[in-house]
């Protein structure tokens, strides 16, 4: 009884894991989730109210009709409808009286749900659900098969679980091996792109930067992009600025950019290229959610952008937009590109008077206390550079950093500088830019990321690393100024849950890279790596060229096929029905079969046809009597019959044709 409960528990949890694999996609309707969860809870509590299931089957049929009706009305996708059907069917089976047949059905429909989850979701959670499903399904089905056998006492559960545990390990290893080796030759006629995973995109680049609100992004640990930097800085924590957008027009509440859009191309140059550029290969992940490209400060060139689809990658174009911003043409959830940045901040390129005027523009109705404050903060400093640095330091030291903001206010800048005296990076950057402008120093706000955490030779940048700072034009040079206190420039403290989420995100990246985006080119690379390793040690007796290996593998496959064919024929040679079929075939060719094409009444009376008669007699004995055919006997009888029939003229066949002559 206890083992029965365990078996059902495992079965129900298997179905739960399979449903979870679909549900994490967020595409399964809420009502379906509710129905399934209720059924699962009832089953786990041992309540299975459906005995014969006729009514529930009718209801189920009705629901399926409605679901597919919704498909016809284009309210639901076909895949989602199939998933809903599988969920409802599983739910119905879960609360039905448990039998061996029900268990088989639950397992098979769970497999359908897993396949549905694979289509709907690309999240790492799917891997977790698949793993749980595989483990539980093997255990539940194994226990069920043993429990259904009527003979003898049932074994202790532990005894059965032992080989099943071996089965679980072998299944998982085998699944991974087959996954890696299965050739990725896709017809690609019905590809469906999975979503960005739970939580959606989080970067939040917008066309404008509006002050006020809260800084929730700062506490978000999701990795939004990763970058491989050459030359490698080698540090664990990168102290660098990733430039995204620049804003130079401020209306008192919101920053915006006044630049124009350029034409699309494969490459965008933002400044003079030269030696000592830092090369970056940047991988924008689905969580990034923006078309703006980022690069280390100061980017001078963007190019080689590729958009990665499920089965292929295509080159995509980019274009300059706004103030030295570069964007992708078209949206894509996974993009890689190369960027080059100048480490040394160069001389300011010539700017037009209009551009300079924009960078000095102050909002109308600027609080008069702000210029006065700028004067106070710059007191004693000589020269624009010194003034800028002094104001930057003053803001860093006199104002506090906080993410808890009161929401929208009428003048957020004055509120930050004179009332709350606390804010986040956008407040600090805005304050610094406006204060500098009051001192006639051109300045603009830059939005991007700060920092980077090293992982496997790359730097991971999180949504919480989003940052804002200031670029000022000082003495014909671009000066980067950051008024935000240094300890608050990167992701905010995220606690244990955040730490766990961060680890999860790191795993998610590997999952996307190694599994979801695994492709034929990866397989080619793997083969080449193997070939290279073999070529490295040609003297080794075990090393063999891959071509030879392929030839050997093909030969083994051919031999196995031949063996299977021979074994199949061998097995058939002891089957009396097969003997009858072969004899019938031989006799039909000779026109000697009896009436209705049966062996009974076959015309085999000639003396020479003794072996045929013997074959027919043995066929009858083996099929209807009590003397089964001995191994190989059927084949021998057929051979003898064929020999006997060879050369004999069919009794019904016309005689040899005589030549005819026409006059």
């Amino acid at each position: 009884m206890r083992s029965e409960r365990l078996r059902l528990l495992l079965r129900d949890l298997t179905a739960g894991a399979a449903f979870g694999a679909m549900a994490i996609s967020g595409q399964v309707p809420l009502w379906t989730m509710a129905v399934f969860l209720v059924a699962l809870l009832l089953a786990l509590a041992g309540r299975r109210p459906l005995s014969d299931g006729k009514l529930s089957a009718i209801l189920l049929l009705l629901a399926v009709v409605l679901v597919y009706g919704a498909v016809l009305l284009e309210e639901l996708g076909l895949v989602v409808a199939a998933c809903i059907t599988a969920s409802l069917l599983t739910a119905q089976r879960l609360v039905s009286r448990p039998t061996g047949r029900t268990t088989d059905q639950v397992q098979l429909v769970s497999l359908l749900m897993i396949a549905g989850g694979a289509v709907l979701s690309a999240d790492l959670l799917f891997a977790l659900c698949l793993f749980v499903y595989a483990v539980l399904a093997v255990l539940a089905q194994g226990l069920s098969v043993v429990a259904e056998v009527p003979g003898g006492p049932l074994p202790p559960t532990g005894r059965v679980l032992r080989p099943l545990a071996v089965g679980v390990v072998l299944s998982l290893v085998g699944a991974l091996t087959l996954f890696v080796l299965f050739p990725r030759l896709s017809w690609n006629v019905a590809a469906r792109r999975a979503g960005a995973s739970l939580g959606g995109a989080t970067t939040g680049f917008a066309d404008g930067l509006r002050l006020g609100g809260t800084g929730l992004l700062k506490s978000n640990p999701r990795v939004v992009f990763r970058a491989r930097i050459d030359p490698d800085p080698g540090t664990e924590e990168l102290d660098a600025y990733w430039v995204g957008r620049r804003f130079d027009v401020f209306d008192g509440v919101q920053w915006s950019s006044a630049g124009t859009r350029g034409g699309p191309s494969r490459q965008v140059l933002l400044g003079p290229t030269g030696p000592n550029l830092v090369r970056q290969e940047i991988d924008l992940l689905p969580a990034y959610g923006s078309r703006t490209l980022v690069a280390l400060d100061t980017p001078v060139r963007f190019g080689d952008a590729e958009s990665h689809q499920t089965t292929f990658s295509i080159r995509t174009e980019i274009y300059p937009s706004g103030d030295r911003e570069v964007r992708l043409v078209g949206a894509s959830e996974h993009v890689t590109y190369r960027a080059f940045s100048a480490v040394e901040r160069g001389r300011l390129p010539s700017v037009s008077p209009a551009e300079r005027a924009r960078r000095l523009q102050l909002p109308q109705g600027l609080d008069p206390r702000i210029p006065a404050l700028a004067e106070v903060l710059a007191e004693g400093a000589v020269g624009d550079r010194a003034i800028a640095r002094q104001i930057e330091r003053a803001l860093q030291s006199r104002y506090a950093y906080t993410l808890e903001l009161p929401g929208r206010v009428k003048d957020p800048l004055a509120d930050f500088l004179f009332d709350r005296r606390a804010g986040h990076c956008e407040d600090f950057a805005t304050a610094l830019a406006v204060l500098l402008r009051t001192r006639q120093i051109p300045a603009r706000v830059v939005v991007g990321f700060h920092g980077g955490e090293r992982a496997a030779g790359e730097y991971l940048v999180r949504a919480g690393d989003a940052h804002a700072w200031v670029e000022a034009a000082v003495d014909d040079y671009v000066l980067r100024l950051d008024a935000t206190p240094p300890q608050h420039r990167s992701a905010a403290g995220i606690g244990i849950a955040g730490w766990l989420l961060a680890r999860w995100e790191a795993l998610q990246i590997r999952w996307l890279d190694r599994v979801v985006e695994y492709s034929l080119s990866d397989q080619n690379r793997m083969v080449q790596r193997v070939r290279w390793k073999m070529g490295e040690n040609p003297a080794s007796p075990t090393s063999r060229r891959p071509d030879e290996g392929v030839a050997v593998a093909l030969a083994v496959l051919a031999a196995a096929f031949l063996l299977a064919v021979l074994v199949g024929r061998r097995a058939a040679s002891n089957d009396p029905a097969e003997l009858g079929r072969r004899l019938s075939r031989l006799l039909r060719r000779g026109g000697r079969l009896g009436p209705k094409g049966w062996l009974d009444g076959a015309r085999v009376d000639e003396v020479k046809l003794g072996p045929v008669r013997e074959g027919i007699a043995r066929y009858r004995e083996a099929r209807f009597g009590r003397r089964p055919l001995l191994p190989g006997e059927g084949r021998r009888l057929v051979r003898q019959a064929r020999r006997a029939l060879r050369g004999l003229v069919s009794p019904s066949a016309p005689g040899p044709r005589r030549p005819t002559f026409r006059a």
Partner: protein
Amino acid sequence: MSARRERLLRAWRRFWRPPRRLRTTPAGRTYLVLTVGVGLGALNTGNNLLYLVLGLQLSLVVVSGILSELCVRRVQIRRLLPGSPRARTPFHLAWGLRLPRGQAFALSVREVHPLLGSAVGQLAWLPSGEEVVVRAVATAHRRGPMQLHAVRVSTRFPFGLFEKSRDLELPGELLVLPGRMPARAEPPSPTSGLGLEQRSLRGPDGGGDLAQLRELRDGEDARRIHWRKSAQLGTLLRVERDAQPQPRIVLQLDDRAPAEALDVTCEELAARAELLLARGAEVGLESAGGVSVKPGTGAFHTQAILRALARAGHPGKAG
């Protein structure tokens, strides 16, 4: 064909014999359809997660093969045939299963025989080191010897998707005795074709009550000596008893009759023989085909007659 060539041929055939048979269960068929579906879906969409699911499904098929092989590979078996199975009467086939090491689950056992294959014994668990007897109920519809060649051990473990079978060669013979039928009260007439009977009464040296004692003559059976009286009188005396009324009957069988008719005849003779033997008669059997059982009584003799009747009309070992 020389013996050497025959041996070589046998070895060659044994080499090519399929070591295992694999049958797909209904659930297994659905599973395979799903696997093909997922495979087509993976090829169609290039979705790597579908490839992962496909890998798991194929891997489960392989694992199923491995675990089921572990179950049937080392099973040792011996056949426990029933003593006197009768045609048309259910009887127990039994097999003793043993596993030197490891353990096996969800086993089923059957004879590799077209008429007995439907009798399946099942066993949930076979632990190592001990013999477990598995029984199945079988029914043979006709009398006669059944040549048994092998026993098939199958398992659906671990997933119930496939049934893997292993045939263990185990030659043997199951002799099915004629089926039971009510015996006629009167012996059949000589012209009935069902069998002729010879009736004889015993002489004065029968097995009845003591009639007299007399001197033993030369050549007489020494077992008839009454030793106590002989010792008292100093001469060898022999016992003479009254003749017994029990008949000595030799049943005559015409085993050249067609198979169906011969079966009926054998069953009727078997019923008659059992009835007569139960009444104390000495019953024998003779046939034109050379079957001969001398008259006798007792349970063993009954079996001898039934066995002879079971083999009547079948070439090979006589009863």
